[in-house]
């Protein structure tokens, strides 16, 4: 059954009126003015409703009505005719009959149609209204979208024009001038070194070994020879991967883009920079061949260790020319530009090795090397020794560089800054001498290849006065002050005692010092802390327990104070390394750096937390000085507690493990530390002006030597420095 209403009217105007009011109200209608047409429509559509305009004369329409009466027997008929005509229609068997007499009332007809179509109408009317509203809404949306698109196109066009108009000329690429170096001074005006862009030793691309080039292509830009500066596939892939990982795990920049970025653009992460980078890349690709671009890239890239360019990098890491670099060396060099500091073999050995091996894997997958070459390269060690130029206070300078790079990025090497550090060069020389002497003494006792680290900090400001990160920077750049994570042993104990004092314990409160076995929670294990030389005192005061560094009494105290309060206290002192919530942590089992420990002790001196500070002021090209703020922070230990803590730390010197320091003949405070098997020896102590810490040990964590404790191995170095 059709949903249209069939309208028959020999009068054009009346028919159109009826038809129109139906259509305006969302009812489909078919209007016919001839017998033939309407008959055909009725036969074809079997309408549920037909409107017959019989105004003129029913009798004249009789023959026609007879011919269609059969088809209309089921339909409802609205007859526009006099009521007197009804019986004529009824005689024809048309029973579902509604009659509308003249004058024509379109609204009445509409109402009848609505009633007849009932449900069907309501749905259709609803759809009609909905369609109208939707159509209006869509028009509005389309119009808005058009305006927005035009606006965006306009803005983008203008923006792109601006970006392109401010681009540097790629013609200058070959003549790119070097930057002005930054000078780094000690606090007492001694030039320590210069931070500069390494004098590049240009190596023509033809001379760069194929496997070096392949290593870079494998890890940086696999489709390098297929794209024209921009790798759409890689960009989209990187986008999807980053979205999937929820972090920036893959970059989409091609080698050409990286070259454009490093040559002409600032390291900022902005859309503008990206657009400029793309345009420049296209220009570079237009001007240079692929091999030339690759050559430029390798000669300009930064590889860490102050090495710019593949030749300088090869010299710095391997002490030989890039022409002589093997596959594993090539892989290491290719590993570096992504994050030179993170993947530095001197700083992060493990990360560096992993990244190099990843590059090798990529080379294998790409078919640049075969299985045999791959496995051979994997077995090659990565370099540990820097082959660059030597300078003063190298560990300290390297530490400053790390701090400054975070702040200034590449500008550090190019902006002609004058950087005045907090280092007291005389103190530094003293510290280096003290370490040297300490190591020599150990050597005399037959202890070889041991490392030591030293840090001295000014108590009033938190400024680093001296730093020695190892016995020889030029052999090992690993900084044992800042990078080595070692167990502090008993040197951690003052933190436990501080937590106790804060909780209301007194210096003379009694502690049990007995061999006690503790059950490890959640594990079927026990743990028994032992005192050094297995001597137990039964009961001791807090002061004596710390002075003699008694393990059993300290664990007993930690139990009373609760380990979580010990951890909290450590955190307030500025320790950021994880202190595990187990009793062994009270005896210094959780690893931390010498720097953390020294700054924690700095708080013991004056009661304030102190932040490390290595830069005094920076003067830029315009002679504008940027003075760094003091490292002294909030008060974390109140005066009464502080006084008691210092009494206990003084007792360590007077009556305890730090007796040797009495030789200084002045009031100093401190604490020794020795870990199991004599793997680490510590002494951290302070006077009224300086806090200093010493660590002695081996990088491989093997014992220093029998009976080499904090007192015997570390304290002499500290005393040597603190003399005078």
């Amino acid at each position: 059954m059709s949903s249209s209403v069939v309208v028959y009217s020999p009068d054009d105007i009346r028919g159109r009126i009826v038809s129109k009011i139906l259509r305006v109200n969302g009812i489909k209608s078919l209007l016919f003015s001839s017998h033939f047409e309407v008959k055909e429509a009725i036969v074809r559509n079997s309408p549920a409703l037909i409107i017959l305009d019989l105004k003129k004369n029913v009798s004249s329409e009789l023959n026609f009505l007879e011919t269609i009466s059969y088809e209309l027997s089921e339909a409802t008929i609205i007859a526009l005719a006099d009521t007197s005509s009804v019986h004529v229609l009824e005689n024809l068997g048309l029973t579902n009959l509604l009659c509308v007499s003249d004058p024509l009332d379109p609204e009445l007809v509409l109402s009848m149609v609505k009633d007849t179509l009932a449900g069907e109408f309501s749905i259709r009317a609803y759809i009609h209204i909905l369609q109208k509203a939707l159509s209006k809404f869509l028009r509005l949306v389309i119009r808005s979208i058009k305006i927005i698109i035009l606006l965006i196109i306009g803005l983008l066009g203008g923006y792109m024009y601006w970006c392109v108009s401010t681009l540097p000329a790629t013609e200058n690429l070959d003549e790119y001038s070097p930057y002005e170096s930054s000078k780094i001074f000690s606090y007492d005006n001694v030039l320590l070194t210069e931070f500069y862009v390494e004098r590049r030793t240009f190596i023509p691309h033809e001379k760069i070994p194929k496997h070096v080039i392949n290593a870079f292509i494998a890890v940086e830009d696999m489709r390098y020879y297929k794209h024209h500066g921009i790798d759409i596939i890689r960009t989209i892939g990187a986008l999807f991967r980053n979205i999937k990982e929820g972090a920036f795990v893959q970059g989409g920049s091609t080698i050409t883009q990286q070259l454009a970025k490093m040559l002409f653009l600032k390291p900022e992460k902005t859309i503008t920079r990206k657009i400029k980078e793309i345009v420049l890349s296209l220009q570079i690709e237009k001007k240079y061949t692929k091999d030339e671009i690759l050559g430029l890239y390798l000669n300009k890239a930064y590889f860490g260790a102050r090495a710019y360019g593949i030749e300088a990098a090869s010299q710095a890491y391997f002490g030989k020319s890039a022409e002589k670099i093997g596959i594993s060396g090539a892989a290491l060099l290719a590993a570096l530009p992504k994050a030179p500091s993170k993947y530095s073999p001197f700083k992060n050995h493990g990360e560096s090795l992993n990244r190099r091996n990843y590059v090798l894997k990529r080379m294998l997958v790409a078919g640049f090397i075969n299985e045999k070459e791959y496995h051979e390269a994997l077995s090659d060690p990565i370099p540990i020794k820097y082959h660059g130029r030597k300078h003063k206070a190298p560990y300290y300078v390297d530490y400053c560089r790390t701090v400054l790079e975070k702040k200034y990025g590449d500008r550090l090497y190019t902006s002609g800054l004058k950087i005045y550090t907090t280092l007291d060069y005389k103190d530094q020389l003293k510290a280096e001498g003290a370490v040297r002497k300490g190591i020599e003494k150990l050597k005399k006792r037959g202890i070889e290849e041991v490392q030591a680290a030293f840090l001295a900090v000014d108590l009033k400001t938190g400024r680093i006065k001296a730093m020695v990160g190892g016995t020889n920077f030029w052999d090992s750049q690993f900084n044992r002050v800042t990078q080595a994570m070692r167990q502090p042993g008993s040197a951690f104990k003052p933190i436990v005692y501080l937590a106790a004092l804060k909780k209301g314990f007194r210096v003379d409160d009694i502690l049990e010092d007995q061999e006690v076995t503790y059950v490890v929670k959640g594990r079927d294990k026990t743990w028994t802390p032992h005192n050094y030389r297995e001597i137990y005192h039964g009961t001791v005061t807090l002061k004596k327990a710390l002075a003699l560094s008694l393990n059993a009494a300290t664990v007993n105290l930690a139990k009373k104070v609760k380990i979580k309060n010990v951890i909290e206290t450590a955190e307030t002192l500025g320790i950021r390394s994880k202190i595990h919530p187990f009793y062994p942590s009270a005896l210094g089992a959780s690893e931390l750096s010498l720097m953390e420990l020294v700054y924690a002790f700095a708080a013991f001196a004056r009661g304030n937390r102190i932040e490390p500070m290595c830069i005094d002021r920076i003067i830029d090209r315009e002679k504008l000085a940027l003075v760094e703020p003091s490292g002294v922070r909030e008060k974390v230990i109140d005066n009464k507690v502080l006084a008691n803590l210092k009494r206990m730390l003084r007792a360590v010197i007077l009556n305890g493990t730090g007796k040797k320091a009495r030789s200084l003949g002045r009031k100093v405070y401190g604490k020794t530390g020795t870990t199991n098997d004599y793997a680490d020896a510590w002494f951290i102590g302070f006077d009224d002006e300086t806090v200093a810490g010493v660590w002695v040990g081996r990088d491989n964590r093997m014992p220093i030597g029998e009976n080499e404790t904090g007192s015997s191995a570390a304290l002499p170095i500290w005393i040597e420095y603190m003399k005078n």
Partner: protein
Amino acid sequence: MKIKNFFKSKPSVQAPDGKDNEVEFKAKDEVLDLADTPKPNKKKKTEGALKGPIGLDIGTANIVVAQNRGKDIRALRQLNAFFTVPYSNITKRTLLRDEVIFFEKDKKLYVLGYSAEDFANTFGGNTRKPIESGLLNPKENESISVIRVIISRFIQGPQTKNEKICFSVPGEPLDRPASVVFHESIIRMHLKSLGYSPIPINEGLAVILSELSSKNFTGIGISMGGGMCNVCFAYLSVPVITYSIQKGGDYIDRMVGSSIGESPTKVKEIKEQGLDLTVEPKDRIEIGLHVFYDDLFSGLVKSLQQVLGSSDNIPRLSMAVPVVLSGGTVIPRGSRERFEKALSNVRLPIRISDIIIAQKPLYATAKGALTMAMTEEKEI
């Protein structure tokens, strides 16, 4: 499709006798942006670049073309009149120099549009009309030529095949039977020859389409032009009643002129110079104008009563419907009140809600025709 840049172009048009005549189109046409208030005396230069369907009002006094330009409708109006001068090279050169619209035929120069009026005033004669009483003037052999040339100046031809052009046609005159069919056919033939798909629309219905969209295109539209008044009663845009009376602005001018012994041209001038029917007349001409305005309105509403009353097609309406008046004759202030007064004296089979004057009386018909053309274009 473009409106011709008639200030610069020199198109060739087909002369009525089939010969090619070089016609110079340099005239002052009135251009109105229907988004603005009409300023009948201000002549603007057309900017061209109009697109899409066209609405065309061929009236006794004016020819108006309406077309979309972006969101606005642009309308161009030209006086539907001509004046002939004997051919001479020097006259032709003068016409060319003065950018006058004209064509040349049978050793005569036919000056068209506003320029014809200027010539008539200069030479002391009357302009001649291609349309009389709303229909092609049977007394003028060159009627269709004049109309063709004027229309051709506005429109350059369709840009797509069968582009819609909707042109106004009068309703059948009540008072003097005349062949609207002939008039309509001639215009249709001409537009078709230009490549358009022409659609005729009753002038009164065009007024309704232009002004009564908010009333669902239901009401009475009356276009009161120079030659006739066209009336249409439409229900939901279906024209139920259409007719015309062959009285309009020219009738008023003529009757006033003959009553007081003044030339109709002078009467017309007074009428168009700001006649205010709401205030007492100042002189004989104004008295005459008041009288014959009332006469015209009276005759009009009587015709309305007669036609509506005698029609059996008038549907039963639950609501009152508006009457909208348009055309140059209703421009004088007070026309609406005079018509309302006249209407109050008759009873109609339908209730009237309000009487309104078209927003832009001179352009309503063309705008309505454009609406129709656009609707037809959409339905393709």
